[in-house]
């Protein structure tokens, strides 16, 4: 219990890498090595996790802060079947994001430091069992994101960086209020930041329903803003559109999941009556995610914004899976979190690549890329298929579970209707993803394909001449990061049980499961 756990390495390695980079070590190399190490470790953990009883493993629990007026804060790390897949996701997406980042990017040492900081924040949030650290680790990533978008971002990075940061900060402040409210309504002796202790206390003495109905909306709105729940999604599309690909990968792939994870860990189990009371609202909002965001995605004329909106739409599945609160739905949500993390990372990375190669991101202006860049075409098709939930890729497994879970769950108002809407969501996804493939890769290449250097330059790295970019400059080896993500998605897609036998026991331990 009070011994150091391997988890701490997951934090120390990026930290060490950052220090090395500050000490003028070769940035890209160091970052790559660090993320590679993390990936290896998380993979080992994944294999080594004692899945049978689904309890927390590799716990380390040190008293940390004991400030008058604050509940005791403990340095409490540990993972179970719900957080471990997310740890793995963080590691793999980080590795990919760093690997695809151009080596000749300007101010590279800062760039890689910020990337590492982002992933450090996500990693810490997922392995902390203490709400205080859970919260502030996530906040770690806020300022690096701001700087990444601001310094290396694309067209209207000015506006985007400010909007994203302020909106997310607002979200996390509301979340903070919610968490404080949750903990502080308890009598002083019972107050604690420790998730496990808190949960066990709340199981015996739940909070008064009236108070819960006050607390849950705070948590819902806070998490909702962080994940882009309709109608709090406006920060995402412009933000992702102008963020450098790697940052978008990290944020959309990993950091967003923080909110869903928080819903599973804190909001729903600890404030369950409030959840029950607000369920109709939550469901109404996620229908908004499906239909509203889905349809808007149809209307997008540029690749990055389309992917931004589609990633918002897919949050609907996660929320739906969580909202069922039965084993099938929640397990589905967890699997889908990983799956969506992989596919979103793929899509954002590739769209960055395409935008930069073609020096263009408007569908109307593109076409016929498949002739010149077949590898890119194959990779992008894979990514789109994953997003569309084509069987064989991870998203399908997760979505199916969410469908089953939500169809069976006794949800208010529409009942099975939510599942049906969700399934319709897959149709919408198919429409816009295929349209994207068609207009980017199929057909003939526009005659005037002189890439505008401006866009090319803003697409992350400087100086990469965009004109030769049109051709498939890269062998498969150069696309290794994408292939890595695709392989992960395929493995989970064909053998979801590999993930499920880890996830399911921990999920079934969650309280109040229907």
């Amino acid at each position, binding site marked *: 219990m009070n011994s150091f756990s391997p988890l701490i390495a997951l934090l120390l390695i990026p930290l060490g890498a950052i220090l090395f980079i500050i000490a003028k070590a070769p940035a890209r190399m160091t970052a790559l090595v660090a993320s590679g190490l993390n990936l290896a470790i998380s993979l080992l953990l994944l294999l080594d996790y004692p899945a049978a009883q689904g309890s927390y493993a590799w716990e380390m629990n040190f008293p940390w802060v004991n400030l008058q007026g604050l509940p*005791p804060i403990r340095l409490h790390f540990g993972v179970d079947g719900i957080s471990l897949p997310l740890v793995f996701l963080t590691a793999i997406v980080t590795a990919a994001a760093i690997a695809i980042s151009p080596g000749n990017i300007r101010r590279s040492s800062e760039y890689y430091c910020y990337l590492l900081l982002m992933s450090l924040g996500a990693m810490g949030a997922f392995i902390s069992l203490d709400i205080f650290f859970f919260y502030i680790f996530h906040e770690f990533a806020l300022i690096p994101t701001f700087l990444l978008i601001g310094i290396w971002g694309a067209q209207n990075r000015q506006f985007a960086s400010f909007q994203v940061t302020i909106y997310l*900060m607002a979200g996390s402040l509301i979340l903070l209020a919610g968490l404080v409210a949750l903990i502080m309504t308890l009598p002083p002796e019972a107050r604690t930041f420790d998730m496990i202790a808190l949960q066990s206390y709340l199981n015996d003495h739940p909070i008064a329903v009236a108070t819960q109905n006050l607390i849950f909306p705070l948590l819902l709105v806070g998490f909702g803003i962080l994940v882009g729940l309709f109608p709090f999604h406006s920060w995402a599309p412009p933000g992702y559109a102008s963020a450098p690909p790697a940052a978008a990968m990290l944020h959309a792939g990993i950091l967003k999941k923080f909110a869903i994870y928080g819903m599973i860990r804190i909001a729903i189990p600890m404030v369950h009556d409030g959840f029950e009371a607000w369920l109709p609202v939550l469901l109404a909002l996620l229908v908004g995610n499906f239909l509203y965001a889905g349809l808007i995605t149809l209307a997008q004329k540029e690749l990055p914004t389309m992917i931004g909106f589609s990633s918002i739409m897919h949050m609907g599945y996660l929320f739906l899976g969580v909202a069922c609160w039965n084993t099938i739905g929640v397990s589905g949500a967890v699997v889908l979190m990983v799956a969506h993390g992989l596919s979103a990372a793929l899509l954002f990375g590739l769209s960055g690549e395409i935008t930069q190669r073609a020096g263009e991101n408007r569908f109307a202006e593109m076409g016929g890329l498949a002739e010149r860049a077949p590898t890119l075409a194959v990779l992008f098709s894979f990514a789109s298929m994953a997003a569309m939930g084509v069987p064989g890729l991870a998203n399908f497994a997760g979505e199916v579970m969410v469908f089953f879970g939500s169809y069976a769950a006794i949800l208010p108002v529409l009942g099975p209707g939510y599942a049906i809407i969700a399934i319709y969501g897959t149709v919408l996804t198919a429409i816009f993803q295929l349209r994207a493939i068609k207009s980017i890769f199929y057909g003939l290449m526009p005659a005037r394909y002189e890439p505008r250097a401006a866009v090319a330059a803003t697409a992350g790295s400087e100086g990469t001449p965009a004109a030769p970019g049109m051709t498939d400059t890269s062998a498969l080896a150069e696309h290794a990061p994408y292939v890595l993500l695709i392989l992960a998605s395929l493995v989970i897609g064909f053998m979801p049980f590999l993930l499920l036998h880890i996830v399911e026991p921990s999920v079934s331990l969650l309280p109040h499961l229907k």
Partner: protein
Amino acid sequence: MIPASDIAYFAPELILTIWAMGLLLAEAFFSLEPRTITSGALAGILACFLVTALFDATPTLFWSDMCKWDGAAKFFHLFFLAVAALVIWMGDEVQEPVSHGRGEFVVLPLFTTVGLMLLAATNDFMLLFISLELATISFYILVAYQRRNLTALEAGVKYLILGGLSSAFLVMGIAYLFGITGSTRFDAIFNWLHGHHALQTGVSFGMLLVLTGVGFKIATVPFHSWAPDVYEGAPNSITAFLSVGSKAGGLIILMRLVLGIFDTESAAAVWIPVLSVGAIASLLLGNLSAIPQRNLKRMLGYSSIGHTGFILVAVIGASVSLAASPYPTDAATGQIAVTVYLVSYLLATFTAFIVLAVLERRLPGLEIHHLAGLSQRSPLLAAAFALSLVSLAGIPPLSGFIAKALVVLVAWNRGLYTLLFFTIFAAVAALYYYLGPIKAMYWSEPLDETPIRLNRATSGVLTALIVLLIVTGFWAQSISALVNGSNLSPNATPAAPVALIQH
């Protein structure tokens, strides 16, 4: 432990005063190097600090009950001494040396500090008035110290006139309180108020006048008007001194009054609404009108008005006579919150102003756009300034977050939902202008590439402050050490928060 005798408790003030006198004389007779005076002053402060640290915080009245020694007194003594040290060091080391009388410029802050320290320990309105004026009058001089410089003079005059106005209100208020309760002792007045449940108009009239006077010191709306101008006009070190020292002085008085004297049902019914209005107004006006500012010092001036708002929320939350408070121990948390907030505010503000003081000598001006590309020219300065702003914005893992978190916590616990809402709104709005300079420093194109060199002391202090900012945020235990010398071992059972100010 020093025996609790009158003279002993009075030691810090005595030491500092005598030391300051000595320095003045020494400087007058054998003209010393400014550097030596500075180090002398710092040595004196250090000595005083050590002595003060030796006292334990058990509440005692001394000096025929005119002074009160307790947790708050001790904390604020140490606080003001730390502030003074930083101010004096800045004044000589970092910023443009003053044109004349550098000795006085170093020594005067010592007198201010004595005034503020007395203020922290006062238990009587007479002493309150005198110590307040001692501090304020030396501030008049310090603000307008560059008397060849019109803006400085203008700032000084504005501060002078408005300060005089506020002290007039203060004295008038004191007069009424004294007239009706028949005493100038805090404890006596408190007992009187407990005796008469129905509050007389005269008392609340006096109370309001006094609050007006105090509101001026802590620069809360509507008594804030002086702050932006004076902040902009005064020398950097003095601006920092004003925004931390004088604000803290006002706050300790405010707490002594509203939490020490007026914390009865009937009185609270008067001052809680007043302070709430003040808090909300400060939150909104301070943070919103900081957004369009271009001059950094002015922006920080407005933002300090906003911070007053945040602190006031905690002060209100510390009142035991609040209606909705299921757990009475939470009241004490309010006071903790104030102190923690002040500590983090001290760290962030001084980091910011040290950077500004350095830049003032290097840059054509202190507008935001002058910062362009600072991260290339001097990574340390850029990082320090950015971190201080981030901490002021209350983003983890810096100490500003703990402070804001505590405020939010208190606001929720004490059922101050309206204030909670405005707190969050203000925090978000604040981000808007805190991010601006960061943007300028990190991705605007630099005007000129020449790197900015720092001497060892400055960079050392800045690094130390950065470390403190991060450590106090990430390992808040250190704050609790700073706040109430409570034992550093986190293993100790979570003590129920002890109110610094009790009756």
